[in-house]
Protein backbone atom coordinates (compact mmCIF):
# COMPACT_ATOMS: atom_id res chain seq x y z
CA UNK A 1 0.00 0.00 0.00
CA UNK A 2 1.21 3.51 -0.79
CA UNK A 3 2.50 5.54 2.10
CA UNK A 4 -0.11 8.20 1.31
CA UNK A 5 -2.83 5.62 1.97
CA UNK A 6 -1.14 4.55 5.21
CA UNK A 7 -0.97 8.15 6.34
CA UNK A 8 -4.65 8.62 5.45
CA UNK A 9 -5.55 5.62 7.61
CA UNK A 10 -3.39 6.85 10.48
CA UNK A 11 -4.98 10.31 10.27
CA UNK A 12 -8.48 8.79 10.24
CA UNK A 13 -7.66 6.88 13.43
CA UNK A 14 -7.43 10.23 15.24
CA UNK A 15 -11.14 10.71 14.48
CA UNK A 16 -11.90 8.07 17.11
CA UNK A 17 -12.16 9.58 20.58
CA UNK A 18 -12.21 7.76 23.93
CA UNK A 19 -15.49 6.07 24.84
CA UNK A 20 -16.92 5.85 21.34
CA UNK A 21 -18.88 2.93 19.86
CA UNK A 22 -17.48 2.56 16.33
CA UNK A 23 -18.19 0.44 13.26
CA UNK A 24 -15.34 0.17 10.78
CA UNK A 25 -16.57 -0.75 7.29
CA UNK A 26 -15.05 -3.42 5.07
CA UNK A 27 -11.82 -2.51 3.26
CA UNK A 28 -9.60 0.43 4.18
CA UNK A 29 -11.61 1.42 7.29
CA UNK A 30 -10.94 -1.97 8.91
CA UNK A 31 -7.24 -1.10 8.96
CA UNK A 32 -7.81 2.01 11.08
CA UNK A 33 -7.82 -0.19 14.16
CA UNK A 34 -4.12 -0.94 13.61
CA UNK A 35 -3.38 2.71 14.38
CA UNK A 36 -5.14 2.80 17.76
CA UNK A 37 -3.04 2.41 20.90
CA UNK A 38 -3.49 -1.01 22.47
CA UNK A 39 -5.29 0.22 25.59
CA UNK A 40 -7.41 2.86 23.84
CA UNK A 41 -10.94 2.88 25.37
CA UNK A 42 -13.26 2.19 22.44
CA UNK A 43 -16.01 -0.36 21.65
CA UNK A 44 -15.86 -1.74 18.11
CA UNK A 45 -19.13 -3.09 16.65
CA UNK A 46 -19.54 -5.48 13.72
CA UNK A 47 -22.83 -6.07 11.91
CA UNK A 48 -22.79 -9.84 12.17
CA UNK A 49 -23.42 -9.65 15.90
CA UNK A 50 -20.58 -8.56 18.15
CA UNK A 51 -19.36 -5.65 20.24
CA UNK A 52 -15.86 -5.56 21.66
CA UNK A 53 -13.83 -6.77 18.67
CA UNK A 54 -10.29 -7.75 19.54
CA UNK A 55 -7.26 -8.14 17.29
CA UNK A 56 -7.53 -9.99 13.98
CA UNK A 57 -6.24 -13.58 14.09
CA UNK A 58 -4.39 -15.67 11.53
CA UNK A 59 -6.17 -18.84 10.31
CA UNK A 60 -4.11 -21.09 12.59
CA UNK A 61 -5.11 -19.04 15.66
CA UNK A 62 -8.73 -18.53 14.57
CA UNK A 63 -12.01 -19.65 16.16
CA UNK A 64 -14.14 -20.98 13.24
CA UNK A 65 -17.24 -19.33 14.78
CA UNK A 66 -15.78 -15.88 15.28
CA UNK A 67 -15.58 -13.52 12.30
CA UNK A 68 -16.31 -9.87 11.57
CA UNK A 69 -18.71 -8.73 8.85
CA UNK A 70 -15.90 -8.72 6.31
CA UNK A 71 -15.12 -12.39 7.02
CA UNK A 72 -11.85 -11.78 8.89
CA UNK A 73 -11.19 -13.97 11.91
CA UNK A 74 -11.24 -11.76 14.99
CA UNK A 75 -10.90 -12.22 18.74
CA UNK A 76 -12.78 -11.12 21.83
CA UNK A 77 -11.62 -8.68 24.51
CA UNK A 78 -12.73 -8.69 28.16
CA UNK A 79 -16.34 -7.45 27.98
CA UNK A 80 -17.18 -8.58 24.43
CA UNK A 81 -20.81 -9.47 23.66
CA UNK A 82 -22.52 -11.57 20.97
CA UNK A 83 -26.07 -11.07 19.69
CA UNK A 84 -28.31 -11.82 16.71
CA UNK A 85 -28.56 -9.77 13.51
CA UNK A 86 -31.79 -7.99 14.53
CA UNK A 87 -30.17 -6.80 17.78
CA UNK A 88 -27.05 -5.77 15.90
CA UNK A 89 -29.00 -3.48 13.58
CA UNK A 90 -31.23 -2.27 16.41
CA UNK A 91 -27.99 -0.77 17.76
CA UNK A 92 -27.28 0.82 14.39
CA UNK A 93 -30.74 2.24 13.65
CA UNK A 94 -31.39 3.53 17.18
CA UNK A 95 -28.25 5.66 17.15
CA UNK A 96 -25.90 3.65 19.39
CA UNK A 97 -23.02 4.02 16.94
CA UNK A 98 -21.09 7.23 17.58
CA UNK A 99 -19.08 6.83 14.41
CA UNK A 100 -18.83 4.70 11.32
CA UNK A 101 -16.03 4.76 8.77
CA UNK A 102 -17.01 3.64 5.27
CA UNK A 103 -15.47 3.28 1.84
CA UNK A 104 -16.86 5.14 -1.17
CA UNK A 105 -17.14 5.11 -4.95
CA UNK A 106 -18.48 8.68 -4.94
CA UNK A 107 -19.33 11.36 -2.38
CA UNK A 108 -21.33 14.44 -3.38
CA UNK A 109 -20.86 18.01 -2.17
CA UNK A 110 -24.08 17.59 -0.17
CA UNK A 111 -22.78 14.43 1.54
CA UNK A 112 -24.60 11.82 -0.55
CA UNK A 113 -22.72 8.50 -0.51
CA UNK A 114 -22.52 5.90 -3.29
CA UNK A 115 -20.58 2.80 -2.28
CA UNK A 116 -22.51 -0.34 -3.16
CA UNK A 117 -23.23 -0.61 -6.86
CA UNK A 118 -21.71 0.18 -10.25
CA UNK A 119 -24.50 -0.80 -12.67
CA UNK A 120 -23.32 -3.44 -15.12
CA UNK A 121 -19.99 -3.91 -13.36
CA UNK A 122 -20.32 -4.42 -9.62
CA UNK A 123 -23.50 -5.29 -7.77
CA UNK A 124 -22.78 -7.61 -4.85
CA UNK A 125 -25.65 -6.20 -2.76
CA UNK A 126 -25.96 -3.53 -0.16
CA UNK A 127 -25.32 -5.56 3.00
CA UNK A 128 -25.43 -3.38 6.12
CA UNK A 129 -24.13 -0.27 4.40
CA UNK A 130 -27.40 1.62 4.07
CA UNK A 131 -28.19 1.44 7.76
CA UNK A 132 -24.65 2.38 8.81
CA UNK A 133 -24.60 5.37 6.43
CA UNK A 134 -28.07 6.54 7.36
CA UNK A 135 -28.04 6.01 11.12
CA UNK A 136 -24.56 6.25 12.64
CA UNK A 137 -24.30 9.55 14.52
CA UNK A 138 -21.23 10.53 12.49
CA UNK A 139 -20.31 9.08 9.10
CA UNK A 140 -16.82 9.56 7.73
CA UNK A 141 -15.44 8.17 4.50
CA UNK A 142 -11.99 6.79 3.72
CA UNK A 143 -11.21 6.71 0.03
CA UNK A 144 -8.56 7.43 -2.53
CA UNK A 145 -9.11 10.96 -3.83
CA UNK A 146 -9.52 9.74 -7.41
CA UNK A 147 -10.42 6.43 -9.03
CA UNK A 148 -7.89 4.26 -10.86
CA UNK A 149 -8.45 6.24 -14.05
CA UNK A 150 -7.76 9.49 -12.20
CA UNK A 151 -11.38 10.68 -12.13
CA UNK A 152 -12.54 12.57 -9.02
CA UNK A 153 -14.53 10.55 -6.47
CA UNK A 154 -15.65 13.76 -4.76
CA UNK A 155 -18.27 15.25 -7.07
CA UNK A 156 -20.99 17.87 -7.26
CA UNK A 157 -23.58 15.08 -7.42
CA UNK A 158 -23.24 11.29 -7.41
CA UNK A 159 -23.89 9.48 -10.69
CA UNK A 160 -23.99 5.99 -9.14
CA UNK A 161 -26.93 4.52 -7.14
CA UNK A 162 -26.92 6.04 -3.67
CA UNK A 163 -26.34 4.24 -0.40
CA UNK A 164 -27.80 7.15 1.57
CA UNK A 165 -28.42 10.84 1.09
CA UNK A 166 -26.69 13.69 2.94
CA UNK A 167 -24.97 11.37 5.40
CA UNK A 168 -21.20 12.03 5.09
CA UNK A 169 -19.65 14.53 7.49
CA UNK A 170 -15.95 14.19 6.68
CA UNK A 171 -13.77 12.55 4.02
CA UNK A 172 -10.24 11.26 4.54
CA UNK A 173 -8.31 10.74 1.31
CA UNK A 174 -4.72 10.10 0.27
CA UNK A 175 -4.48 13.85 -0.42
CA UNK A 176 -6.54 15.66 2.19
CA UNK A 177 -9.14 15.84 4.93
CA UNK A 178 -12.32 17.47 3.63
CA UNK A 179 -15.51 18.36 5.49
CA UNK A 180 -18.97 18.31 3.94
CA UNK A 181 -20.74 21.52 4.99
CA UNK A 182 -23.92 23.35 3.96
CA UNK A 183 -21.65 25.39 1.64
CA UNK A 184 -20.14 22.25 0.06
CA UNK A 185 -16.68 20.71 0.39
CA UNK A 186 -14.29 22.54 2.73
CA UNK A 187 -10.59 21.65 2.82
CA UNK A 188 -9.52 20.98 6.41
CA UNK A 189 -6.02 19.54 6.10
CA UNK A 190 -3.69 18.42 3.36
CA UNK A 191 -1.27 15.54 3.38
CA UNK A 192 2.26 16.80 3.90
CA UNK A 193 3.73 17.95 0.59
CA UNK A 194 0.44 18.36 -1.26
CA UNK A 195 -0.85 21.86 -2.03
CA UNK A 196 -4.44 23.08 -1.75
CA UNK A 197 -4.37 23.76 -5.49
CA UNK A 198 -3.49 20.11 -6.19
CA UNK A 199 -6.37 18.93 -4.01
CA UNK A 200 -8.78 21.32 -5.72
CA UNK A 201 -7.61 20.10 -9.15
CA UNK A 202 -8.39 16.48 -8.17
CA UNK A 203 -11.81 17.33 -6.73
CA UNK A 204 -14.89 17.30 -8.97
CA UNK A 205 -16.73 20.11 -7.18
CA UNK A 206 -15.82 23.53 -5.77
CA UNK A 207 -13.45 23.22 -2.80
CA UNK A 208 -13.61 26.00 -0.22
CA UNK A 209 -10.44 26.92 1.64
CA UNK A 210 -10.32 27.92 5.30
CA UNK A 211 -9.37 31.51 6.20
CA UNK A 212 -6.65 30.24 8.50
CA UNK A 213 -3.42 28.42 7.62
CA UNK A 214 -4.01 24.92 6.34
CA UNK A 215 -2.60 22.22 8.64
CA UNK A 216 -0.77 19.26 7.14
CA UNK A 217 -1.26 15.76 8.46
CA UNK A 218 1.23 12.97 8.95
CA UNK A 219 1.05 9.62 10.63
CA UNK A 220 1.21 10.04 14.38
CA UNK A 221 1.70 6.70 16.04
CA UNK A 222 0.93 6.19 19.70
CA UNK A 223 -0.90 9.49 20.08
Amino acid sequence: MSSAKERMIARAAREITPGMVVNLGIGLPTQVVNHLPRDFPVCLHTENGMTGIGPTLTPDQADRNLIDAGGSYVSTVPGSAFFDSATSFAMVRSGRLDLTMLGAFEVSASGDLANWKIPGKFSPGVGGGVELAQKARRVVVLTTHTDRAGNPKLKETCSLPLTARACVARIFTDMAVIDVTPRGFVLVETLGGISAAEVAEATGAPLLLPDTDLPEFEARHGR
Partner: protein
Amino acid sequence: MRLPDKSCKIASAIAKIKPGDRVMIGGFGVPGTPMTLIQALVDHGADNLTIIKNDANEPGMGIDHLLQSGQVSRLITTHLGLNTHAISLMNTGQIEVEFNAQGILAERIRAGGAGIGAVLSDIGIGTELAVGKQVVEIAGKPHLVETALRADVALIHADRADIFGNLAYVATAQNFNPLMAMAADCVIAETETLLPLGGLAANAVHTAGVFVDHVAELAELSKEYAVVQR
Protein backbone atom coordinates in the same frame (compact mmCIF):
# COMPACT_ATOMS: atom_id res chain seq x y z
CA MET B 1 -44.88 -34.36 32.60
CA ARG B 2 -42.20 -34.87 30.00
CA LEU B 3 -41.38 -32.69 27.02
CA PRO B 4 -41.67 -34.43 23.64
CA ASP B 5 -38.62 -35.84 21.85
CA LYS B 6 -38.08 -34.15 18.45
CA SER B 7 -34.75 -35.72 17.62
CA CYS B 8 -34.71 -37.08 14.08
CA LYS B 9 -32.64 -38.32 11.17
CA ILE B 10 -31.57 -35.47 8.90
CA ALA B 11 -32.71 -37.14 5.66
CA SER B 12 -36.23 -37.79 6.94
CA ALA B 13 -36.64 -34.17 8.10
CA ILE B 14 -35.24 -32.74 4.85
CA ALA B 15 -37.58 -35.05 2.86
CA LYS B 16 -40.45 -32.75 3.90
CA ILE B 17 -39.12 -29.98 1.65
CA LYS B 18 -41.14 -29.71 -1.59
CA PRO B 19 -40.29 -28.19 -4.98
CA GLY B 20 -41.14 -24.49 -4.97
CA ASP B 21 -40.77 -24.12 -1.19
CA ARG B 22 -39.39 -21.02 0.49
CA VAL B 23 -36.43 -22.04 2.64
CA MET B 24 -34.70 -19.84 5.21
CA ILE B 25 -31.10 -20.79 5.93
CA GLY B 26 -29.16 -19.38 8.89
CA GLY B 27 -25.55 -18.24 8.84
CA PHE B 28 -23.35 -15.25 8.05
CA GLY B 29 -20.37 -16.57 6.14
CA VAL B 30 -19.37 -19.94 7.57
CA PRO B 31 -20.43 -19.35 11.19
CA GLY B 32 -23.99 -20.58 11.74
CA THR B 33 -24.47 -21.97 8.23
CA PRO B 34 -26.05 -25.44 8.48
CA MET B 35 -23.68 -27.08 5.99
CA THR B 36 -24.92 -30.63 6.64
CA LEU B 37 -28.62 -29.78 6.23
CA ILE B 38 -27.77 -27.93 3.00
CA GLN B 39 -25.92 -30.99 1.68
CA ALA B 40 -28.96 -33.13 2.58
CA LEU B 41 -31.19 -30.73 0.62
CA VAL B 42 -28.87 -31.11 -2.38
CA ASP B 43 -29.17 -34.91 -2.05
CA HIS B 44 -32.97 -34.61 -1.67
CA GLY B 45 -33.18 -32.62 -4.90
CA ALA B 46 -36.27 -30.40 -4.40
CA ASP B 47 -35.94 -27.57 -6.91
CA ASN B 48 -37.46 -24.21 -7.85
CA LEU B 49 -36.64 -23.12 -4.30
CA THR B 50 -36.69 -19.58 -2.95
CA ILE B 51 -33.74 -19.30 -0.56
CA ILE B 52 -33.68 -16.62 2.12
CA LYS B 53 -30.17 -16.21 3.49
CA ASN B 54 -27.93 -13.29 4.47
CA ASP B 55 -25.24 -14.18 1.93
CA ALA B 56 -24.46 -16.90 -0.60
CA ASN B 57 -21.36 -18.27 1.19
CA GLU B 58 -18.35 -18.75 -1.10
CA PRO B 59 -17.94 -20.80 -4.29
CA GLY B 60 -18.05 -24.51 -3.45
CA MET B 61 -19.38 -23.92 0.08
CA GLY B 62 -22.75 -23.77 1.83
CA ILE B 63 -25.65 -22.69 -0.35
CA ASP B 64 -23.37 -22.48 -3.38
CA HIS B 65 -24.00 -26.25 -3.66
CA LEU B 66 -27.73 -25.49 -4.13
CA LEU B 67 -26.86 -22.88 -6.75
CA GLN B 68 -24.52 -25.34 -8.52
CA SER B 69 -27.23 -28.02 -8.57
CA GLY B 70 -29.75 -25.60 -10.11
CA GLN B 71 -32.26 -26.00 -7.26
CA VAL B 72 -32.61 -22.26 -6.59
CA SER B 73 -34.81 -19.98 -8.67
CA ARG B 74 -34.90 -17.01 -6.32
CA LEU B 75 -32.60 -15.66 -3.63
CA ILE B 76 -33.63 -13.11 -0.99
CA THR B 77 -30.38 -11.83 0.50
CA THR B 78 -28.24 -8.85 1.50
CA HIS B 79 -24.79 -9.37 -0.02
CA LEU B 80 -23.16 -11.80 -2.48
CA GLY B 81 -19.69 -10.24 -2.42
CA LEU B 82 -17.77 -13.41 -1.56
CA ASN B 83 -19.52 -15.62 -4.15
CA THR B 84 -18.60 -14.73 -7.74
CA HIS B 85 -20.60 -17.76 -8.94
CA ALA B 86 -23.81 -16.39 -7.39
CA ILE B 87 -23.18 -12.96 -8.93
CA SER B 88 -22.67 -14.59 -12.32
CA LEU B 89 -25.97 -16.54 -12.02
CA MET B 90 -27.70 -13.28 -11.11
CA ASN B 91 -26.13 -11.31 -13.96
CA THR B 92 -27.08 -13.96 -16.53
CA GLY B 93 -30.66 -14.18 -15.25
CA GLN B 94 -30.40 -17.79 -14.06
CA ILE B 95 -31.53 -16.79 -10.57
CA GLU B 96 -33.65 -13.86 -9.47
CA VAL B 97 -32.06 -11.93 -6.60
CA GLU B 98 -33.82 -9.57 -4.19
CA PHE B 99 -31.43 -7.46 -2.13
CA ASN B 100 -32.46 -6.18 1.28
CA ALA B 101 -30.64 -3.90 3.68
CA GLN B 102 -29.20 -6.36 6.19
CA GLY B 103 -30.99 -5.14 9.29
CA ILE B 104 -34.24 -4.82 7.36
CA LEU B 105 -33.98 -8.46 6.25
CA ALA B 106 -33.50 -9.34 9.92
CA GLU B 107 -36.53 -7.26 10.96
CA ARG B 108 -38.75 -8.70 8.20
CA ILE B 109 -37.89 -12.21 9.41
CA ARG B 110 -38.33 -11.20 13.05
CA ALA B 111 -41.78 -9.80 12.16
CA GLY B 112 -42.68 -13.03 10.38
CA GLY B 113 -41.67 -15.00 13.43
CA ALA B 114 -43.56 -12.67 15.76
CA GLY B 115 -46.88 -12.83 13.89
CA ILE B 116 -46.62 -9.21 12.70
CA GLY B 117 -47.59 -8.24 9.15
CA ALA B 118 -44.87 -5.70 8.41
CA VAL B 119 -42.45 -3.25 9.97
CA LEU B 120 -42.04 0.46 9.15
CA SER B 121 -38.65 2.03 8.63
CA ASP B 122 -36.99 4.99 6.93
CA ILE B 123 -34.00 2.89 5.83
CA GLY B 124 -33.37 3.24 2.11
CA ILE B 125 -35.64 6.22 1.49
CA GLY B 126 -34.24 8.19 -1.42
CA THR B 127 -32.40 5.17 -2.81
CA GLU B 128 -33.35 2.40 -5.22
CA LEU B 129 -34.13 0.14 -2.22
CA ALA B 130 -37.34 2.16 -1.80
CA VAL B 131 -38.59 1.58 -5.34
CA GLY B 132 -41.98 -0.15 -5.41
CA LYS B 133 -42.49 -0.08 -1.63
CA GLN B 134 -45.58 1.39 0.00
CA VAL B 135 -44.86 4.62 1.90
CA VAL B 136 -46.78 5.68 5.01
CA GLU B 137 -46.34 8.77 7.13
CA ILE B 138 -45.63 8.27 10.84
CA ALA B 139 -45.18 11.32 13.07
CA GLY B 140 -44.86 13.47 9.97
CA LYS B 141 -42.05 11.44 8.42
CA PRO B 142 -42.21 8.98 5.50
CA HIS B 143 -41.59 5.32 6.29
CA LEU B 144 -41.36 2.31 3.99
CA VAL B 145 -43.63 -0.67 4.63
CA GLU B 146 -41.32 -3.68 4.92
CA THR B 147 -43.49 -6.76 4.73
CA ALA B 148 -42.91 -9.71 7.05
CA LEU B 149 -41.09 -12.76 5.71
CA ARG B 150 -42.01 -16.34 6.54
CA ALA B 151 -40.84 -19.57 4.99
CA ASP B 152 -42.08 -23.13 4.53
CA VAL B 153 -38.90 -24.47 6.11
CA ALA B 154 -36.01 -23.01 8.10
CA LEU B 155 -32.61 -24.72 8.33
CA ILE B 156 -30.76 -23.80 11.51
CA HIS B 157 -27.30 -24.51 12.94
CA ALA B 158 -26.97 -24.67 16.74
CA ASP B 159 -23.99 -25.37 18.95
CA ARG B 160 -25.99 -27.21 21.61
CA ALA B 161 -29.58 -28.43 21.74
CA ASP B 162 -31.75 -30.73 23.76
CA ILE B 163 -34.14 -33.28 22.29
CA PHE B 164 -37.13 -30.93 22.74
CA GLY B 165 -35.42 -28.52 20.33
CA ASN B 166 -34.22 -25.87 22.78
CA LEU B 167 -31.22 -24.33 21.02
CA ALA B 168 -28.07 -22.42 22.01
CA TYR B 169 -25.61 -20.71 19.66
CA VAL B 170 -22.00 -19.59 20.04
CA ALA B 171 -20.06 -16.46 19.07
CA THR B 172 -20.94 -14.96 15.68
CA ALA B 173 -22.67 -18.20 14.61
CA GLN B 174 -25.84 -16.73 16.11
CA ASN B 175 -26.59 -14.08 13.39
CA PHE B 176 -29.87 -14.95 11.58
CA ASN B 177 -30.42 -18.36 13.22
CA PRO B 178 -32.61 -17.35 16.19
CA LEU B 179 -34.72 -15.11 13.93
CA MET B 180 -35.26 -17.73 11.23
CA ALA B 181 -35.95 -20.40 13.85
CA MET B 182 -39.16 -18.48 14.67
CA ALA B 183 -40.29 -17.68 11.13
CA ALA B 184 -40.98 -20.96 9.31
CA ASP B 185 -43.78 -23.53 9.32
CA CYS B 186 -41.24 -26.33 9.71
CA VAL B 187 -37.99 -25.62 11.57
CA ILE B 188 -35.14 -28.14 11.23
CA ALA B 189 -32.06 -27.65 13.42
CA GLU B 190 -28.71 -29.39 13.22
CA THR B 191 -26.65 -29.27 16.39
CA GLU B 192 -23.03 -30.00 17.22
CA THR B 193 -24.09 -31.50 20.55
CA LEU B 194 -27.50 -33.02 21.30
CA LEU B 195 -28.33 -33.23 24.99
CA PRO B 196 -31.04 -35.08 26.93
CA LEU B 197 -33.88 -33.10 28.51
CA GLY B 198 -32.38 -30.97 31.24
CA GLY B 199 -28.95 -31.06 29.62
CA LEU B 200 -29.31 -27.50 28.38
CA ALA B 201 -29.95 -25.20 31.34
CA ALA B 202 -33.17 -23.18 31.01
CA ASN B 203 -31.21 -19.94 31.38
CA ALA B 204 -28.86 -20.93 28.53
CA VAL B 205 -31.61 -21.40 25.92
CA HIS B 206 -31.46 -18.88 23.02
CA THR B 207 -34.29 -20.36 20.92
CA ALA B 208 -37.17 -21.97 22.83
CA GLY B 209 -37.90 -25.48 21.61
CA VAL B 210 -41.53 -24.60 20.92
CA PHE B 211 -40.34 -23.01 17.66
CA VAL B 212 -38.38 -26.06 16.55
CA ASP B 213 -39.92 -29.11 14.83
CA HIS B 214 -36.92 -31.38 14.26
CA VAL B 215 -33.45 -31.52 15.79
CA ALA B 216 -30.57 -33.70 14.61
CA GLU B 217 -27.10 -34.20 16.03
CA LEU B 218 -24.16 -33.89 13.62
CA ALA B 219 -22.08 -37.05 13.62
CA GLU B 220 -19.04 -35.10 12.49
CA LEU B 221 -18.29 -31.66 11.12
CA SER B 222 -17.37 -31.61 7.45
CA LYS B 223 -14.43 -29.56 6.21
CA GLU B 224 -16.82 -26.75 5.29
CA TYR B 225 -17.28 -25.84 8.95
CA ALA B 226 -13.57 -25.28 9.42
CA VAL B 227 -11.60 -22.04 9.34
CA VAL B 228 -11.38 -20.81 5.74
CA GLN B 229 -7.75 -20.61 4.58
CA ARG B 230 -7.54 -17.47 2.49
